[in-house]
């Protein structure tokens, strides 16, 4: 307990010092509040946005797009990755095209996304789906390819049929890789959602910080950025917990 407290205090030193220096700079008028508002002003703005419900509304809007886009991308990537990983023929068929498309950043699809889907949620979800698709796909393929042959031999010896071999042996054996892909995919989705909200929609955290820029509300911009950080952290922690649960059998997690 004492140890915990000690490390907490040690970890808090740098942020507290930074905040104090920042606050001092702003109060003394060393920098203009438009360039860098005081942390106390940011906190006040954040609190205000929270109470007004705007923050909650924007967070939910952003999160909704991340979830729908990610699920759409992963739902395509997972079965494709499983079949490509297990069939060299399909791999040979699809891989060249995918390798060509993969380096194109989702952001580069923005003009097409607007042409195809207009404004609102659809282009945003489309961009996020593309962002999530490739990490999940590539990791699923390598997960399936790295399944230890001994499991397949043991399963065949037990008389396991093709379908069960796929769902009960190859899929779980590949989960560590797949989950790594999911985690990277969610990270990408989170980046893409903020960018996409800056162009095609009129709510969400990305939209809100861009809107604040129009009025030079720097305190609101920073409050929005901090919310993005907190949301990302929460998403990653949730993912981490899921990971630990699904991989509780995995050797790598031994303490």
């Amino acid at each position, binding site marked *: 307990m004492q140890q915990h407290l000690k490390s907490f205090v040690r970890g808090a030193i740098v942020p507290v010092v930074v905040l104090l220096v920042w606050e001092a700079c702003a109060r003394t008028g060393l920098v203009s509040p438009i360039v860098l508002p005081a942390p106390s002003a940011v906190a006040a703005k954040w609190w205000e946005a929270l109470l007004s419900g705007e923050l909650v509304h924007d967070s939910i809007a952003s999160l909704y797009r991340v979830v729908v886009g990610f699920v759409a991308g992963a739902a395509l990537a997972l079965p494709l990755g499983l079949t490509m990983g297990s069939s060299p023929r399909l791999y040979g068929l699809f891989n060249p095209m995918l390798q060509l498309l993969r380096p194109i950043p989702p952001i580069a699809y923005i003009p097409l996304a607007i042409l195809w889907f207009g404004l609102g949620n659809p282009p945003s979800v489309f961009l996020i789906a593309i962002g999530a698709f490739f990490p999940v796909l590539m990791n699923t393929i390598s997960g399936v390819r790295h399944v230890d042959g*001994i*499991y397949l*031999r*043991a*399963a*065949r*010896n*037990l*008389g*396991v*049929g093709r379908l*069960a071999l796929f769902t*009960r*042996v190859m899929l*779980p*054996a590949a*989960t560590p890789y797949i989950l790594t892909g999911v985690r990277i995919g969610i990270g990408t989705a989170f980046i893409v959602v903020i960018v996409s909200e800056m162009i095609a929609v009129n709510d969400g955290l990305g939209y809100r910080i861009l809107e604040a820029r129009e009025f030079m509300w720097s305190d609101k911009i920073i409050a929005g950025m901090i919310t993005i950080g907190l949301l990302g952290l929460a998403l990653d922690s949730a993912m981490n917990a899921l990971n630990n649960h699904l991989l*509780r*059998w*995995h*050797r790598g997690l*031994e303490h």
Partner: protein
Amino acid sequence: MQNPQIVVSDVQKVFRTQERDVVALKDINLTIKQGEFVCLLGPSGCGKSTLLNAIAGFSLPSSGSIQVDGQAVTAPGPERGMVFQEYALFPWMTVAQNVAFGLEVKGMSKGAMAERVDSLLDKLHLKDFRNRFPKDLSGGMRQRVAIARVLAMDSPIMLMDEPFGALDALTRRNLQDELLRIWAEFGKTIIFVTHSIEESIYLADRIVVMTYRPGTVKRDHRVAIPRHRDPSCAEFNELKRELGSLVMEEQQRHAAAEMKLAAVD
């Protein structure tokens, strides 16, 4: 005289590599009766695992045939359960799920399955570990689970590929005794690959000593020492000496061949 259960006739296995062909098995003829405990003994590279894999159906012979109960072996199947040296348990399944898996894919009813799994876990002293994952078990425990998994399938034949090779001496003896108990109780036919002379004498009805490349049968020896065998008794040691010199001849050929290969490289 009982009909033989496993008939290996004129089996030959050639592995083709880019540089050369390696004859792993040559002119293997063996007949094994139901309930027999046979050890395949020899240095590494003598083809004993290759022969076991051929009987298991993982890697079919280049020529010749293997028949089990009159049927030619063409693929792996649960009537020839395999215990691997590296355990090959499914790490994402608990002990009980591993043992039940083969029954589950066979479509056995939940009740019958639970009953059989329980009784096997009980028999192999795994009851307290039924909900553990393999990573939490010692090597000896894991191999017990692998044995239970094969027993669950009720395979008449158990194929074992150096199953105790990675275990310490005490655990090994312990599992050998357990295996003999299981063999006596369930009346399985066991083909057991090992390079330990002592292990083969301790376990087998019959020891098939194999030669280093090409793998042929050098000696087919029936062990006459009554069970339960005492490794310190005179007969045991005499046989150990005798088989030991046979195996060492092959080991020396193995070493010489490796030296020659290294010189060529």
